[in-house]
Every structure is written in C-alpha cells, then in structure tokens.
C-alpha cells in the first residue's frame, strides 16, 4: 500500500505490559485463558489480560463490535467499566507505559516478510496496526508472488489468530513447560550421542530454507545414523523424478509463460492449485492480455480429467482420464516426430480412445507446437507419473523450450518430499527399529496413514515427539506435543523456486507458548533454545551475505527479498532415451471408475481446514462451500443411476468411501474427482467433521485410484452451494432463459471473430437509446471512481473475494446460512458453462457492487442510508440503515448482503483481532456491500492532501485489485483521461453488465476472447447452459 515496507529489527511487542518481553508467556495467561475459555471469560485475569495484552475492541458489546476501537488513543485498550456514569458508560483509555518509536497509533505500517509454502517461498507485505497484523498482500519485489497473493496467502492471517492453536506444550495430554522438554531432550541427546543417532528418526515436511537446511545438515552430521525423512501429502516429487529421469539432474523448473505463445497443460492446474501458481498466473496473464484487436495473445491447450480453473482458461480443452494422459503424451510425441520435431525418446506403442475428435485435436496441437518452437510450453501436473514428466521434458527439449520459456535450477537449501522414504520409515516403525520419532510439522496420521500402518508403527516407538501448531490427529497419538509458532510470529528464511532468498520476519510476538521451526530445529541438535533471530542472522552472515552485512541485511528486511540472490539457470540436455521401461503402454481402460485426488481449493491438503474464510469460500468450479463432493459427469452419473447430492459409496481394493455426488459438466467420463483436506477430526471448531476424508481412499504413492466401483445409497446430503446450476436440473425453463441471457451477460468471442468484428461487444444486445426523464446529475468534476474487470484474464481463482473478506471484515455465516443463500461475500465469482452439456466451456465473472450512477437501490431507501457521493461512489451507511432490504430487492446485480443475524457475535475474542480497524464491523439488521474500499480511498486522499501532493493514478488500490494474480481488476479515476482505467474503458471490448437498464454502472467488463486454433474452431454464440 502507501508507505514502503519497513525493516524491523525486533518483533514488536504485542504485549506492552513488559518492555523487555521476557515473561510474555506468563503475562499472556495463554494456558489458563484458552484452556477454559468460558469460565474465565469474566475473571479478573481475563479482564486485565484483554485490557493490557490485546488491542482494544475485543471488549466491545457484541452487537456493536467495532474494530475502530483498535485505533483508540495510543493503540491501547478500552474496557467498558459498566454503566457507572449516569449518562454513558465510562470508558478507559490505557496508553503505553513507554511507547515504541515505530508505532503511531491509528497509522498502519507495512512490513515485508515471506510465507513459506511447501518448497516455495511467497513474498508478502503485511499490514499491521499497533503491532497487530491485519492484512497480507503480495510483495511486488518478490519473484514468486510478484505483488499478488492467492486465497491461501490472504487467509493465512486467520491461521495466526486461530483460537484452536495449542497454547502450551503437553506430554501425554498433560500440560508441561518447554523447560521440561529441553530437559528431556538433553537426556535423549546424550543417549543418542553414544550410538550416533541409531534408532532416532525425524519426519519433517518439505521446506526450502537456508537456515533450516543448515540446521538439518548440522543435525545429521551430529547423528549420522539418524534418519531424516521428508514427506508431504501433496508434492512435486514426480516432477523432479521425471526431469531427473530424462536429464540425470535434480532440477527445479520454472515456467516463463509471459514469453510463451502456446501452452499445453497436461492435467496441470498451474494457474490455481499447482505450485508457484501466483507467479504462473501473473506471467500467463502478461501474454494473455490484449489492448485491441491488433494485439496477439497466447493460446492455452488443456488436457485434463476434471474441470480446473486452468481448463476454464483454456482455448481448447480435451477431457481425458488422468491415467490416460500418458497415452496422450505419447501420441503427441509421435505426432511431433512425424512433423520432424526430434523427440529423441524410444516411444512405446500405445493407443488412446477418448473424446470424439482427439486425433484431429492432437494433429492441430502438434502443428501449433511445431510452428512455435522455443515459444511454447508443455507442462504436466504433479499427479502424473515420472515417465510423463520425462517425456514432457524431452518434448520441451525438442521444441527448444528448455532455457527459453522454461528455466531450470539446481535447488539448494531444499528438502523435498519422498514417498518411498516415508514408506521406508513406516516399515522401520513397524519393525520397531525406531526408538524416538520426532515429527516436525505435518500430520501423517491424517494424510498418510494407509491401512493404519503409520499409527500402528507409532505405538511401537518409545518416544514420539510432535511439533505442530495444534493438537491434530498425529499429535493425539504422540507422547510429546509442542506448539510451533505461526510464520508471522517467527524468524526464519526461505528460498523460492528460482532461488530468490528472503527473510521471514515476525510481525507479532508469539501469541501462545510456542516456538518457531527455526528455533526448534536448532533445539534438536543443540538441546537449547536459541533466539530465531540469531540463528537466521548467523546463517546469512556465514553463508549468504558477503560484504557489508548490516547494510545488506537491512535491505533484505526492508525489501523482503535478497535481490540478485537467485540461482544460476542451468541448461540441461536430454540424457536418457529410454524413459519407458515397458515397451507397450496398454490403453488403461480398467473396468470401473478412475478416482483423482486433488488438494482442496479451500483447505489445501487440510492445513487450512480450520480457516473459516477458506472454508466458506466456494470452490471456483463446483461452487460448493463447507463440503467436499465427488465430482462426476452427467453421463457417468446416469450410467450408475446417481443423482446430484446423493451419497454414493465408492469401493476399490477393500477400501471404501461414502461421499455426496456432484454432477458437473466437462468432467471426463468415468472419472471422479475428490478434494483432499476435509473430514478432519482434530482440526478445530471450524474444520472438524466437515466433509469426507478422502485420504482414507487415496493410495499413498499416487493421486489416482483406478478400478473403483460405485453404488448409490439413496440418501441425500444437504450441500451448501452458492450458485445452483439450474440448467442441469430438469428445469428446462430456467436453462433456456439462461442460455438466452448468457451471451449478453458474459460477452465472449474467439480471437478471429473479434478481429473480424472488433465491435461485436456492442452488438450482442440491442440497447434501446438510453435517456432519462430528468436532467441527469453530471459527474464531470474531481475524482470519479470506476472499475474495469478484464474477463479475458480473470481465472476465477477467488483470491479477490478472500482479500475483500480480510480487508472489509466480512463475517463468516456458516454452512446452514450459506445453504439458505445468505453468504456475505462482497465480491462473488459467477460461474457459467457455455457450449454443450458434456463438453462445455466454463467462464467466470467477478461481481461486486457496480456503483451505478443511477443506482436503483438509492432511489428506494426510505431513510437515505444509501446515497451517491460526489465522487460517484454508491455509499452504504450502515449506521443509518433500518434494514428494509428494499435496496437489495431492487439491485439488478444482487450484490447487496444483509446481516440476517448478528454474525460477529460469537466470534472468539482472538479472531476479532484479525479485523481491519478502518472498517466498521456491521451489526445485525443492516445491509452491506462493496464500497470500492472507501477506507483506502479516504486514507490515500488524506495522505496526499496532508503532504500537499496530488493523488497519482494507481495510488489508490482496492483490496481485490491489489491481490488479483492476473491483474484483471483495475480501479481509478475515470475523470482523468490519462488514467489506466479510462484508457481501458475506451477499449472496444468494454461493456456494462445489464447496461440496457440504464443504471450506468461504474464497473464495466471487458469481453472474454478465446484464441482458438482455426483448425478446431467452434462457434461461440451457440447454445449456452449454466
């Protein structure tokens, strides 16, 4: 946002009680308070705890809960001391004892930091108020976030304030102190010193961090016989294996979509769920965005089994069961060889029979690739076996993409997940050869407990020690449970795919009695707790920074990245011709269904399962929230006589799972897609007992299970879906209406059509000449805010709606309310299908308040609670609203959200802290909606005015715009002809949704263009369905 990221030498004290934050732990009353929340809710400790420790506002009356109070004098708290005064309750102002220079109460500060995600590092900028992180944004200087953030990054702030995180260490369920553990561990160390670590096993999640890597190596050098296994349920292991198989090198590929004209995605969701998706989206959109019919744009081919966000973006999508992607790739390679592209691999014979016209499809695709040598990308998803990745590497090599559009790096400081090693560990556990097992993060009991072997083994281990943020399924089966700090409470460092180094700096002192992974790693080898800050600094001082350390370090902290630290790109050659061991790949049409397991778009692998924002965030494709479903195609459902929402029983290899069916067009026939991460039992108040645990059915070493039988149970489950897909029900009436309207609602053409007729957008609906019966108010002076959404690059990834939720304190309402159509999202992503029912195209349209100049909602409000400002904002004044809901009825876009209940009433105190102090928290019975982030507008205007500057275009950035990974949303002053927004609105693709109503929305959309291969072209104005 406004002020540049600032460096931060020490974690700001969230608890100002104690200037030299030694006994933070005691002062936090962590244990007593959180253990027995209810009893203590009104106890004196609790009061003082809140007054002194927590920023104010947490003590407000539930129905008038207001984050603004956070801003109250000196950023200290207000406690309602009851109605002692006759006229109004006495409020206390509690200033600091001595104030930290850094913090000006009420003025937010931004700090650069890093969010470690698997083996990647995502650069972030964190907005803090009085040392309290409230909002995460992408760091523009960082190569893997490039200023954007995805839903997970946005929502990770809520994990910090998760009341279900464990508050203190425990042993066998009894609460203990860290000192107890260090004592215990030192005994262990001495014991294992003798045997060089024999019988000591460590299991950690994958990571990419110089310091952690250093500590790991130190540990292993200290205990050579100890084993250190790295495992994650969702990992890119096979990608690395594949590349290694082909090039004999361990490499990390990074794709430069910005310079690729043709992209072929083989079962890969690189825009949404596969690794590095933020950078991928940003780069992809750069080659996708067009400013006029003269520009050229990239072309995306997607081959996949289930509909993904990537598939929705594709210009040509072919649905192929995941297990047959290999056959497809081989076919493609052969076709390329026929075209004289030297794919130097001995290809086994194979056959493929999917789709109606896949032969022509492959031919056309091959030609396209062949004609775009070194300007194309072929990539496969992590679910595919190593052979596919090896072949893909070979193809890219043959197309001379390697080194051009794809760069590869030797990853350092990185520990990658390995299933085989994990299986070996499980065997060892079973054998009982492991005396002490240390689990560093991760939750194998939930994610990797195939046939219960892991837990069985665990019981045979003498000492089990589990470091994690909460008492999860694994922790419950371990002797020791030790809380790990959230990354925003810890010092650390991380390295991104391309080797960019960055530091993780804490925004707040640990809220509970926990320690950072860095500290824990060093504790394991040294036996004592060293401050994370020192550990990280020593790593950087010794290994990374040469020259003036202090200066560089300062810059690294300030910018959030160590500029110029990225790896040298290597230029690997194809070293291995016979990738395929088998000489014949049979057409893998096993009887029964193919089940594909993907990480949940909301909960990832389960890590975010207690995150209410994500939980309520509907899946972009199915639009289902608060559940995971078995997605299958119409004909598959019909074949097995399954109905939508019917609970079906899937069985294979003696395993079975019962999951509600969700019928979705575009799913490859006889394939079913399950989302992982649901069905947790020890996640917390949000995540427990939601959905089905698909890990129970997933093979440990694969994400695909074949030969699955399914039977309907006749029982149905209530599914909270934010967008009914009428067209699919027998409701022909609705279906017809929708495909009549869709071309006008979501305007779309192929690139050729667009070039043929640049003005097509205006011709879709014939608008009557729009005039009004009165003299219109003129908005020609001062700032006139407007927004433009480029549907051509919007992927529908939901990041905007989570960013909005975080910025605007939007409440979570729960499954029941969502199911009753009362979700509160200010910006929602409408999803439509077009084309035929079995093989449709999918399109997304983000819809927030359109800020109509002639807003129908304003006209009808009896109490002037919603009026128009001179800057063209449709102002919603919560505190004036009586709640007639007339405005919502009269809104043609249905973007107004109503507080049917007091949704923030039952929010745990600690969660309230996550809320934005600059935005009123709405009370019961009032309407709310998108405000164009008016708080940001006001702040920026004030800042400019106070500094006697003019407001520049781009100074004001709305939350959705800021986070959008494809930069699809642009906001600005339409009154300034040179502003980006007014340039966009001048484009011929620009159109107003429902413009024919003459409401004159300030938000306009830019039509979607699909760059279709003329060889495979489809007419775009054909039958639409939703």
């Amino acid at each position, binding site marked *: 946002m406004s002020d540049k990221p600032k460096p931060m030498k020490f974690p700001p004290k969230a608890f100002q009680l104690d200037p030299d934050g030694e006994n933070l732990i005691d002062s936090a009353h962590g244990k007593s308070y959180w253990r027995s929340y209810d009893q203590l809710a009104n106890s004196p400790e609790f009061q003082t705890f809140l007054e002194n420790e927590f920023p104010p506002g947490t003590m407000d009356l539930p129905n008038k809960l207001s984050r603004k109070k956070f801003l109250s004098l000196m950023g200290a708290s207000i406690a309602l001391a009851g109605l002692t005064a006759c006229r109004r309750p006495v409020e206390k102002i509690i200033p600091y004892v001595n104030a930290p220079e850094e913090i000006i109460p009420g003025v937010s500060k931004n700090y650069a930091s890093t969010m470690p995600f698997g083996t990647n590092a995502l650069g972030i900028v964190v907005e803090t108020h009085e040392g309290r992180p409230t909002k995460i944004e992408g760091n523009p200087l960082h190569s893997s976030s490039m200023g954007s953030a995805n839903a997970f990054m946005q929502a990770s702030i809520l994990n910090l304030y998760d009341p279900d995180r464990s508050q203190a260490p425990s042993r066998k369920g009894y609460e203990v102190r860290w000192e107890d553990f260090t004592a215990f561990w030192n005994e262990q160390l001495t014991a294992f010193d003798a045997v060089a670590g024999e019988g000591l096993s460590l299991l950690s999640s994958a990571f990419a961090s110089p310091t952690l890597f250093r500590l790991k190596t130190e540990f292993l050098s200290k205990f050579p016989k100890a084993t250190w296994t790295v495992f994650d349920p969702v990992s890119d292991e096979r990608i690395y294996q594949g590349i290694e198989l082909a090039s004999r090198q361990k490499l990390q590929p990074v794709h430069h979509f910005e310079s690729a004209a043709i992209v072929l995605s083989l079962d890969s969701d690189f825009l949404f769920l596969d690794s590095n998706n933020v950078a991928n989206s940003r780069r992809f959109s750069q080659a996708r965005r067009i400013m006029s019919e003269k520009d050229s744009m990239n072309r995306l081919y997607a081959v996949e089994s289930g509909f993904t966000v990537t598939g929705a973006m594709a210009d040509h999508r072919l649905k192929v069961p995941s297990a047959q992607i290999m056959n497809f790739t081989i076919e493609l390679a052969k076709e390329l060889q026929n075209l004289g592209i030297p794919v130097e691999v001995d290809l086994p014979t194979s056959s493929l029979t999917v789709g109606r016209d896949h032969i022509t499809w492959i031919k056309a695709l091959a030609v396209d690739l062949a004609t775009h040598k070194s300007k194309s990308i072929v990539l496969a998803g992590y679910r595919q076996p190593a052979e596919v990745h090896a072949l893909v590497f070979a193809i890219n090599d043959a197309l001379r993409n390697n080194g051009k559009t794809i760069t590869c790096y030797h990853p350092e400081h990185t520990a990658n997940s390995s299933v085989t090693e994990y299986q070996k560990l499980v065997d060892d556990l079973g054998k009982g050869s492991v005396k002490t097992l240390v689990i560093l993060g991760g939750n194998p009991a939930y994610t990797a407990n195939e046939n219960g072997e892991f837990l069985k083994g665990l019981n045979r281990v003498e000492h089990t020690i589990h470091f994690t943020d909460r008492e999860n399924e694994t922790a419950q089966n371990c002797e020791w449970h030790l809380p790990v700090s959230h990354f925003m409470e810890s010092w650390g460092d991380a390295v991104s795919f391309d080797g960019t180094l960055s530091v993780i700096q804490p925004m707040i002192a640990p809220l509970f009695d926990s320690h950072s992974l860095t500290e824990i790693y060093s504790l394991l080898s040294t036996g004592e707790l060293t401050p994370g800050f020192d550990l990280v600094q020593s790593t950087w001082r010794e290994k990374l920074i040469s020259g003036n350390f202090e200066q560089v370090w300062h810059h690294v902290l300030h910018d959030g990245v160590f500029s110029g630290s990225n790896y040298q790109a290597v230029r690997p050659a194809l070293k291995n011709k016979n990738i395929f061991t088998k000489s014949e790949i049979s057409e893998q049409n096993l009887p029964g269904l193919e089940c594909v397991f993907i990480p949940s778009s909301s909960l990832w692998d389960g890590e975010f399962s207690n995150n209410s924002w994500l939980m309520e965030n509907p899946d972009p494709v199915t639009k289902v929230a608060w559940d995971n479903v078995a997605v299958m195609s119409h004909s598959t459902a019909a074949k097995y006589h399954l109905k939508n929402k019917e609970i079906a029983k899937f069985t294979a290899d003696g395993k079975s799972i019962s999951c509600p069916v969700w019928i979705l067009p575009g799913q490859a026939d006889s394939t079913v897609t399950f989302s992982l991460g649901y069905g947790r039992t020890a996640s917390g108040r949000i995540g427990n007992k939601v959905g089905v645990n698909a890990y129970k059915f997933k093979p440990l070493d694969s994400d695909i299970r074949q030969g699955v039988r399914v039977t309907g149970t006749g029982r149905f489950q209530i599914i909270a879906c934010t*967008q*009914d897909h*009428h067209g699919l029900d027998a*409701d022909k*009436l*609705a279906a017809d*209406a*929708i495909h*009549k*309207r*869709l071309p006008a*609602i979501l305007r779309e053409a192929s690139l050729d059509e667009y070039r043929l007729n640049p003005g097509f957008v205006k011709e879709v609906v014939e608008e009557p000449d729009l005039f009004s019966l009165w003299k219109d108010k003129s908005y020609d002076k001062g700032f006139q805010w407007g927004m433009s959404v480029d549907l051509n690059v919007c992927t529908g990834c939901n990041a905007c709606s989570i960013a909005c939720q975080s910025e605007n304190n939007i409440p979570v309402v729960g499954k029941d*309310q969502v199911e*009753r*159509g*009362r*979700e509160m999202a200010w910006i*929602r992503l*409408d*999803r*439509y299908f077009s084309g035929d029912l079995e093989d449709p195209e999918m399109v997304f*349209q983000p*819809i927030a308040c359109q800020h109509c100049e002639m807003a*129908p909602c304003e*006209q*009808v*409000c*009896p*109490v*002037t609670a919603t009026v128009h400002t001179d800057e063209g904002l449709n102002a919603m004044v919560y505190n*004036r*609203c*009586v*709640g*007639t*809901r*007339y405005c*919502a*009825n*009269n809104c*043609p*876009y*249905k973007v107004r*959200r*109503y*507080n*049917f*209940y*007091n949704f923030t009433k039952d929010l745990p105190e600690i969660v309230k802290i996550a809320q934005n102090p600059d935005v009123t928290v709405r009370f*019961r*019975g*009032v*309407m709310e909606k998108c405000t164009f982030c008016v708080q940001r507008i006001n702040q920026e205007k004030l800042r400019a005015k106070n500094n006697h500057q003019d407001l520049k275009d781009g100074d004001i950035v709305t939350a959705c715009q800021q986070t959008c990974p494809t930069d699809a949303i642009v906001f600005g002053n339409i009154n300034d002809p040179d502003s980006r927004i007014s340039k966009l609105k001048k484009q011929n693709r620009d159109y107003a949704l*429902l413009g024919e*109503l003459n*409401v004159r929305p300030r938000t306009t959309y830019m039509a979607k263009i699909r760059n279709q291969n003329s060889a495979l072209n489809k007419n775009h104005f054909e039958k639409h369905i*939703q």
Partner: protein
Amino acid sequence: MSLLNHIPKQSADAPLDIAVPMFEDAPLISGNQSFASVTNRIAGVVEGPTPKMWWVLFSFSVSLLMVLVGSVGFLVWEGTGIWGLNNPVGWGWAIVNFVFWVGIGHAGTLISAVLHLFRQKWRTSINRFAEAMTIFAVICALLFPTIHVGRVWVLYWFFPIPNQMSMWPNFRSPLLWDVFAVSIYFTVSLLFWYVGLVPDIATLRDRAKTRAKKIIYGILSLGWRGANRHWRHYELGYLILAGLSTPLVLSVHSVVSTDFATSIVPGWHTTIFPPYFVAGAIFSGFAMVMTLAIIARKAFHMEDFITINHLEKMAKIIMVTGLMVGYAYSMEFFISWYSGNEFEKFAFINRAFGPYAWAYWIMISCNVIIPQMFWSKKLRTNVAVLFVLSIFVNIGMWFERFVIIASSLSRDYLPSSWDYYSPTIWDISTLIGSFGLFFTLFLLFLRFLPMISMAEIKGVLPQANPHHTMYDKPGVAHQSR
C-alpha cells in the same frame, strides 16, 4: 374540492329512492321494523348478556394473538434471520401479509365513503362493521412493515422529525409514500368510524343502565343531543369525510403498488399495478366483509338488517372486481410478451410454469375461476355458498401477493443469484397470529359497540321520510308506531 359545491342541493332534497335501479327490488330492511324495534334489536346486542359463543371465539382469537406476540418477540430478539428470507428474496411473507391486510382494509372505507357519495342506501346495514373491519385490518397491515425491518428500534427515522444528525427521510422512496399513505389512511378511517358512531353511542348512553356505562358512553358521545343544529353540520362533515376518503382509499393501494411498480424487478415493473391492486383490494375487502357479515348475522340474528339482498349485492361486486383482477392477470402476460423484453417475458412464464406455478394456479382458480359461480342467482343467494366462496377469494388474494413477490424476486436478472424462497415456521406463526389480533379486536367491537348504524338504518326506514305518502292521511303515522 368540487365535491362541496353540489353537496347542499343533494343533501337537502335528494329523493329517497335514488338508489341505482339494480337495487330497487326488495326493501332494504325486512321485517317491518319501527324506529324503536331497530334500536332494541341493535343496541340489544350490546346490552344483552355475553353469549357463550362469544367467549369461545374470543378466547380462541386471544390465544392466536399470544402466538403473534411470541413470534414477534422472538423476531426482535433474534433478528429477521428466523424468517425464510435469503439473498435474492429480501421480502417474504411479512410483506405479503402487509399487502393482504391493507387490501382487506379497503372495503370498509370504500363501502362507507364511496357508496355514501353514490347514495347507496343499502350500505347502511354493513358500513359500520365494514369500517371496523377496515381499522382492524389496517392495524394488522401496519404491524408487518414495522416488524420486518432489521432494526425496529430506529423505525422513527421514517418520519421527518428534526434530530441531532440533521438527517431526514428520503421522500422519493415508495416505501416512505407507503408509510404516509397507510398511516394517514388509518387515521382518517378511524375518524370516519368514530364520527359515524357518535349518535349511536348517544343511544347507548340514553339506554345505559349502569353508572359506569352512562359515564363512558356519555363521554364518548360528547353530549350528542340529536339536535338539528348538530345534524346539519354532522351530515355535511360526514359527507366531506366521505369525499376525502374516496380518493384516499383509491390512492392507498395504488401507493402500495408503487412499492413494486416503481422498482426495476421484472414482474414488478408494470404500470398496470395501481388499478389492478385497487381492484384486487376491493375484491378481497368485500370478500372479507362477506365472511364477517355472514358470521355476524348468524351469530346475532341480524337477518332483518343484513338481508340476503345485501349479500347478493356484495356478491355482484365481488364478481365484477374478480373479473377486473382476472383481466389484469391476462394483461400482464400480454404486455410482457408485447414489450419484447426478455426479462419481463421470463418473469411471467416463470410465474405460471416455474417453481412457483403451484401458487400461481391456486391464485388463478381462487380469484378468477371460482367467482364465476356468482353468475348464477341461485348460488349468489345461497348463504352457505357465499360464505365458502368468500373464504376462497381471501385465500386467492393472499396467494396473488405471494406470487407477485416471491416469484419475481427469486428469479430476476442474473441467473447466478437465483434462489428459491420457502417460509419457516416463524413466517407461518406470524401470519396466523395476525388473524388472532384481527379477530380479537373485531370481537371486542361486536361486544361493546353497535355493529350496525342505528341512526342510518332509521334514516332509511320508509316512515323516516316526512314527505312519505303514509303521512298524507292522518293516523297512519300513529299505526306505524
């Protein structure tokens, strides 16, 4: 104010039997009543002992009233979330009930005012409790918009009261027009009703036995002495009130209809609404009067005053307005088709064949098809049939409002936000409860006030006319007493 100019002439020497030809047959009051007998019969009801039946009915409706109190209490405590409302459908049963009750509230003033202006003497037998019904119906109507808002406690913001925020209501909002129209309608109806009551209360005062009654009725009757120097102002004042209420009664439901007509929701946004709503209001209003009249005349043996002939006349009006409503339904379809507007077209096709088709066809059969039975004189004059039919009409008219509101809102412009609306137990209990409120008030009225205007009845007895032939030969008059 052109009304005033022609008033004196008319009021002075209007021939008694000016009544429109269709009503000439059959005397207005049967059973050869005299002034005294009229008084005895009607005032008798109030003075006589309380019938058991009354207690039964009263306790029943009071218990319903308790249901209302309960549901409203819970509503205010919990929030509007307890109702079935959702995002596309912001208005549900509450507003349906509001429009329904306002509609019913039309008959009373219409009968008293409009028929009075047209000098329809037959109104005298039914206008009193029709007016009472109006007032109680409007009370029920006012209840719903009040409780359906999210924050009842700031409802006073609807009224232009100077305040420290220096904020004012938005006079452009149809909802505000509504507030004014309905509350004013309520006030005027109340005045109208009371003015009409004064002479009869005087009667009760003069006949009162106990001191308490003497005092209460005494105060209420304001010392009415039946002096002609009262009557002359009284008659004119009453006429003026009628003159004022007539445009008012027509405007109220037109204003209510603007809530829908001025908005842009497909299926609401139609110019036909005002006349169509008014017709519907009269339709339902008369149906309700019919229902109550039949109950009342049975319960208190008022057959002589509320003759079958009165009922038939109402039946005819119901049939006529029913046809108007039916015409409006067909016109809506025609216009939406003729407009060529995709959204409008769909709105109505969706009404008839979409998820709310069931409600739509209930509406059609109750409001259009069933009233056609009134073509036959036989059914028209059969009290039982009339009673059943009138109830059907009431049901039908409730569904009309439900169809208009629910079906239009549930599927408007963007298919992405379409959603189905279904009520919860609390919606239902509130509706039932409102009937409790209505009947409680109505029963109290029947018990403590003359349900038929004695003064007016006497006024239309033949012997009330000093120029009547019976007074030409002496003696006849004496017989008549």
